[in-house]
């Protein structure tokens, strides 16, 4: 029987791509007195619940979802943590 997994996916613009939202938030934090803030990157958090035979196939599926739909590889990169849900 398939196991249940939860993937917590973080999507951000690649380091080489200027992030206009991050730049605006950096400025706002500076204005609030947080002078030590050096950089802010704004991204997305996506949570995917899925069933898979094992961890390897779950990871494989999550990576394919990220490449195909959840991110645009031209401008974005992603990381994710996978947790197996205990029933």
């Amino acid at each position, binding site marked *: 029987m398939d196991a249940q997994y939860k993937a917590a996916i973080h999507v951000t613009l690649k380091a080489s791509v200027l992030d*206009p939202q991050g730049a605006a938030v950096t400025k706002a934090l500076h204005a609030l007195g947080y002078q030590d803030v050096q950089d802010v990157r704004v991204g997305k958090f996506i949570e995917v619940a899925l069933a898979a035979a094992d961890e390897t196939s779950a990871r494989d599926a999550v990576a394919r979802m990220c490449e195909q739909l959840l991110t645009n590889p031209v401008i974005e990169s992603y990381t994710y943590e996978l947790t197996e849900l205990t029933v």
Partner: protein
Amino acid sequence: MNTAVLQFPGSNCDEDAVKAITQTTGKPAELVWHTAEDLSAFDLIIVPGGFSYGDYLRSGAIARFSPAMSAVREAAERGAYVLGICNGFQILTEAGLLPGALRRNESLQYRCAIVPLTVVRADTPFTSGYTTGEEIYIPIAHGDGNYYVDDATLALMEQRGQILFRYAKEHNPNGSVDDIAGVMNERGNVLGMMPHPERAMHEWLGSADGARLFASILTTWRNAHEHANA
């Protein structure tokens, strides 16, 4: 020349595109729902502006998986003309039919204005009615129009003449690299642009400069077909 104007849930410039075609070319244009799987009857396919699927996830990210987009890819491969305007441009980049991607505007503001553009090349199917270097006025209306492409790809695109429109100097409204407003594929039959030529059809709309883009496509199509039939 038969034109299809695609409709996705959330398209809102579809009717304008139909009118632009029928009024400038006198040729038929048909609205085609995004579930269509066969576009073989069409010589020109317009992917119109709007907010397909509410711009959820990313602009154009979900629409690119519509059945009609597979048909658009086939149409592009057989040499039909494909024009993506605004959200249509975003969909074409997401689908990989055009290079690059559209980010949030640098200002983070939605920009709605008539902007001056420079016609970079007037020797293409889409721009033959203009002159190279001409300044034209076309409206923009977008929040995610900030064109990005990496330096190596940009150099290649310049070399291949894939950049058709730039925002005029000092008039870049969104932070696009190299002031890019419209790009073409390598083969020269797919154009994507953020400005809306279908909204610049009459002087009383503020500009009639968009009409020549549609007229250019008809002229190119007519030349190709009249020669073929002669």
